[in-house]
């Protein structure tokens, strides 16, 4: 099987509210870095939650590693999740545990390894993200970039096949961005992972991805290699890549006409 994640004709809304997805199709090939880009609020994070089985599609299928996520029993879903790592937007480190214990957490929960073995594994993972020296710190003592790298070490602790990044670069300084981009690429190639990134940092995302999807208005409005995306013909993709307020995607929130608001005595 070539694709580790396959999403077909996905429809979704939270509790019957405003629809978030209207027929999304997506395929994430093994061993590659695939990026989903799109304006904020288009449900990129929701898509990751659907893939991880934390939400259920209203219609359509989400298939991970050959299994349809919706049909899995709780036990099977948890087995599947052991093969996935997820990096949350702010790291989501356990605040009451040290850096070392955070990375050791999945190992302690899912394996019966000796303390010595856990120590070695944790230090290896921390070394990969360049934070072996920080193992004794508490999450509150870390900078945002460091916290994300610790979370990354924790996400790869069980050697997953798929790792999902939720806005890994947002709010980081240029150096940290550069470090993270390199790290994502290296981990993908060295560990033989498959990476799925959700991002709206156009330049960085295009620079590391093998394949890019652009999500807007509940649909994929464009897809292709970074090269193809840069020269894409569709006005939505163009607007997003160039970052202009004018275009098919409305920048202003829907409102009454200006005259009514100020003159019409409203």
């Amino acid at each position, binding site marked *: 099987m070539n694709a580790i994640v396959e999403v077909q004709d996905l429809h979704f809304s939270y509790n019957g509210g405003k629809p978030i997805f209207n027929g999304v199709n997506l395929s994430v090939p093994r061993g590659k870095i695939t990026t989903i880009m799109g304006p904020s609020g288009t449900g990129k994070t929701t898509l990751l939650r659907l893939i*991880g089985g934390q939400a259920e599609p209203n219609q359509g299928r989400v298939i991970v590693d050959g299994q349809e996520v919706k049909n899995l029993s709780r036990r099977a879903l948890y087995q599947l999740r052991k093969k996935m790592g*997820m990096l949350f*937007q702010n790291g*989501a480190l356990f605040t009451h545990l040290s850096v070392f214990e955070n990375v050791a957490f999945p190992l302690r929960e899912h394996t019966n390894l000796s303390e010595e073995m856990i120590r070695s594994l944790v230090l290896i993972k921390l070394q990969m993200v360049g934070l072996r020296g920080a193992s004794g710190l508490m999450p509150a003592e870390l900078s945002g970039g460091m916290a994300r790298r610790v979370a990354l070490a924790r996400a790869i602790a069980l050697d997953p096949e798929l790792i999902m990044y939720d806005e890994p670069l947002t709010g980081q300084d240029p150096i940290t961005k550069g470090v993270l981009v390199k790290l994502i690429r290296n981990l993908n190639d060295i560990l033989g992972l498959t990476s799925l990134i959700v991002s709206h940092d156009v330049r960085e995302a295009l620079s590391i991805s093998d394949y890019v999807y652009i999500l807007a208005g509940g649909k994929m409005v464009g897809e292709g290699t970074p090269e193809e995306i840069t020269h894409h013909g569709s006005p939505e993709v163009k607007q997003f890549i160039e970052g202009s307020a004018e275009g098919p995607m409305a920048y202003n929130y829907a409102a009454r006409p200006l005259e009514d608001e100020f003159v019409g005595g409203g």
Partner: protein
Amino acid sequence: MLAQMDTLGQYGLTTVKQYGKAGILLARALLRWPNLPKNFPLLVQQIYAEGVLSLSIIIISSLFIGMVLALQGYHTLSKFGAAQQLGPLVALSVTRELGPVVTAILFAGRAGTSVTAEIGLMKATEQLSSMEMMAVDPTQRVIAPRFWGGFVSLPLLTLIFNAVAIYGAYLVGVQWLGLEAGTFWSNMESSVDFRVDVLNGIIKAIVFGGVVTWIAVHQGYDAKPTSAGIAAATTRTVVHSALAVLGLDFVLTTMMIGGW
């Protein structure tokens, strides 16, 4: 009229839904064979956080409650020349009612709120989500130990409350107001029955322990993941716990009464 009925119906539905959610949460947390070597240390941690750290407020409050009870009781009783009945008065009101009820309400304020706020914040910072994505069930890892911690702690705290409150009454009644120690203790001993009074009080405490911690973990787990949401959830923990404890106390007392 129709709109009012609509609102009433909506309110009813939301309430029933809340009970359902809370029930499912509790079932998921408890109806599974626990992994003892892994969960026992977590339980001990929670007994420390919820029980041991509540000791100071329980001991100080119970001492004062016992003292004021003795002071009030002594003056009223002596009007009828029955001051020697002070021991039974204090011991019965404390073991039957004040002990379990006041301990549960103090416990809700001290430990329940911190459980709610902690779980709510873990939710808001995506720690619960990330745990789920690591294939660890937060109801097992986070909810269950906190529930059991409170369930075990509250009856023990109640026993301590009872003992300290009676000692406080002894300080005022005997040491200060000059009641004879022998009368105080022997009258108490002859009128307090272990099964009817002390044990029934403990049964109340066990029920309150379950209810208060259940409310606390549910409010945390169900909190809106914003700062206002967590604040509201913490408030609800105290309000709902206090109402539930006082209401249940009445129900339990009516069921236990007999031979008093």
